[in-house]
């Protein structure tokens, strides 16, 4: 049973009462909230996600709630509660849905140490994954959103989960976060894409989330090997360029973007070295999404070439 099998009022009521348990990739999150905007966001963007029957096991227990302070009368706020603990400072109520998304990323990245976790977008084609690690502002999410609208499968927009035991990438498809100018850019690029309401004045500027493709959500349990590491760089007016990068340099840069590289110690290093051993690494600069998508379409995995 998917979220879409519930009507919006039904979903709202369930969320406000006992909450719902949603599966996102390897994790089940139990979510409870009486905030209508969160329910609306779930209804719109999580429609294809499986609901898990109550009474079982959830990895994370999350609640979004309005703090009971007197500010609620003139500047209402929202809290992200992890099993009752407020992990972050409250945000303006308007930002409740983005806060859920950020909080869910935190749930995974601060707990799931059976994976090497890298701050990166990951997409897949023909059984091979491409990882796009990049600091915020490099255009990683925009590029990722464009590619999944052109046949690539979304593994994750924020978190590359490298399974330690076999170094395959475990998907964690969830809504893709778009910021500022890239929101309109993507709307023009793919008018059929489903985007949430824009929320202004967040710590990342104006944000909106894009609904992940149904097929990516349905295949969320299929792990794949990594074939490419590509560091995207969006530059106004830049020509589309793909430059080879030595694996040793790529390794340091990927390690810089890993959440739990030092927590995992030697296991982390081995996973990372093993992961990059069979991957082609590139720097990639672009300014036109169409050209960027064509460049990605031309990628061939090394194992196919030899």
């Amino acid at each position, binding site marked *: 049973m998917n979220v879409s099998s519930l009507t919006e009022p039904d979903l709202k009521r369930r969320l406000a009462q006992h909450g719902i348990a949603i599966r996102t990739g390897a994790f089940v999150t139990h979510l409870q909230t009486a905030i209508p905007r969160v329910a609306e966001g779930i209804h719109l963007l999580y429609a294809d996600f499986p609901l898990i029957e109550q*009474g*079982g*096991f*959830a*990895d994370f*227990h999350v609640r979004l709630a309005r703090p009971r302070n007197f500010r609620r009368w003139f500047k209402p706020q929202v809290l992200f509660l992890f*099993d*009752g*603990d407020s992990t972050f400072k409250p945000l303006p109520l308007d930002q409740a849905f983005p806060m859920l998304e950020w909080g869910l990323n935190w749930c995974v990245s601060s*707990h*799931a*140490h*059976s994976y090497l976790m890298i701050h990166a977008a990951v997409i897949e084609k023909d059984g091979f994954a491409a990882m796009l690690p990049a600091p915020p502002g490099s255009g990683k999410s925009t590029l990722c959103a464009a590619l999944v609208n052109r046949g690539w499968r979304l593994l994750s927009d924020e978190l590359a989960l490298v399974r330690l035991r076999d170094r395959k990438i475990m998907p964690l498809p969830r809504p893709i976060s778009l910021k500022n100018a890239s929101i309109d850019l993507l709307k023009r690029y793919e008018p059929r894409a489903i985007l949430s309401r824009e929320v202004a004045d967040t710590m990342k500027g104006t944000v909106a989330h894009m609904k992940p493709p149904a097929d990516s959500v349905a295949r969320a349990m299929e792990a794949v090997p990594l074939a490419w590491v590509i560091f995207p760089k969006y530059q106004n007016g830049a020509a589309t360029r793909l430059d080879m990068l030595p694996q040793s340099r790529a390794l340091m840069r990927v390690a810089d973007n890993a959440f739990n590289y*030092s*927590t*995992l*110690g030697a*296991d982390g290093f081995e996973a990372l070295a093993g992961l990059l051993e069979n991957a082609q690494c590139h720097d990639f600069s672009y300014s036109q999404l169409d050209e960027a998508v064509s460049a990605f379409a031309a990628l061939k995995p090394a194992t196919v070439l030899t």
Partner: protein
Amino acid sequence: MTAAPLLLQILRRPETSKSLDLADWDLLLRQARRANLLATLHALLEERGHIEQVPSRPREHLGWAHAIAERHAQAVDWEIAQIRKALAKANVPLILLKGAAYVAARLPPARGRLFSDVDILVPKGSLDVVEAALTLHGWATTHHDEYDQRYYRTWMHELPPMQHVKRMTVIDVHHAILPETAALRPDPEKLRTAAQSLASHADVKVLAPIDMVLHSAAHLFHEGELDNGLRDLVDIHCLLAHFGGLPSFWPDLVRRAKELELTRPLFYALRYTERMLHAAIPPDAMEAAGSGRPHRQILALMDQLYTRAFLPNHPSCRDRLAGMSRRMLYLRANWLRMPPLLLARHLFHKAFISPDLA
């Protein structure tokens, strides 16, 4: 209150974990996470050979906690090496306390135990030398507020916590195990004399087994914030189980408690490890420790407060009185640390003058 929370049931009888269903595991992990005992639970189940029977999802969570705990133990070893290096020239005997001592001496409570500070004990006369040596090696004092500095330096049994500027690790330098202002004043000289060198490093000591138990008890039953209360009680339980087999451990324990003025905390420690964790305390020892028993009515109140405060601070374990019990124990702890007038002054300052109060 009816049945004991799941976490207590499993800490008492780890083998009963076999009969838990997935919903039980969900609750157990939440309680253990809140009590800071998730990695301890992993260690316990692994040691007793039950880990393989844990269903895969909860087992993965235990594994996550284990990964952090392993890294933590390595980091503590490294930190201790840095402290040894910093104090090498100061020629001060270094005694590790609590978590750091359990890790360094490879004692059972160390398994899966996560803690934020390294605690050390040095002679009071050496505080200046130690502070200077640590400062020279990158630790800087925290609590820059003038009031806090005086609070620590005049009234407490430790320097204000020192934080390493690069590693952000924190060291607490103690010269006694209870505050200068407390009614109970165990003589730190006696503890230092009995301390034992580590097999691995002759220049690092930990308290003698009995003193370790007594210190742990004194600390826990003078502590105001019991968020880690159950974990600290589990420490004492582990130490008792580990050292309990030593010849004359139990008679010596009570004798030493009298010598160090710690019969009351020892009484509480034995009472609540038995009540909460079903520790096996020899009846003779329990009876002898009765010399630390408080007045009947006080004990009845303490039972009400501590049996609540030692539960995981999780919604599933809270009853109507849980919050109040914790607040009363907070007040009690401050009461024990200072004479009434000083306490009134301190609480007034914390409430109205100190800028950084949360």
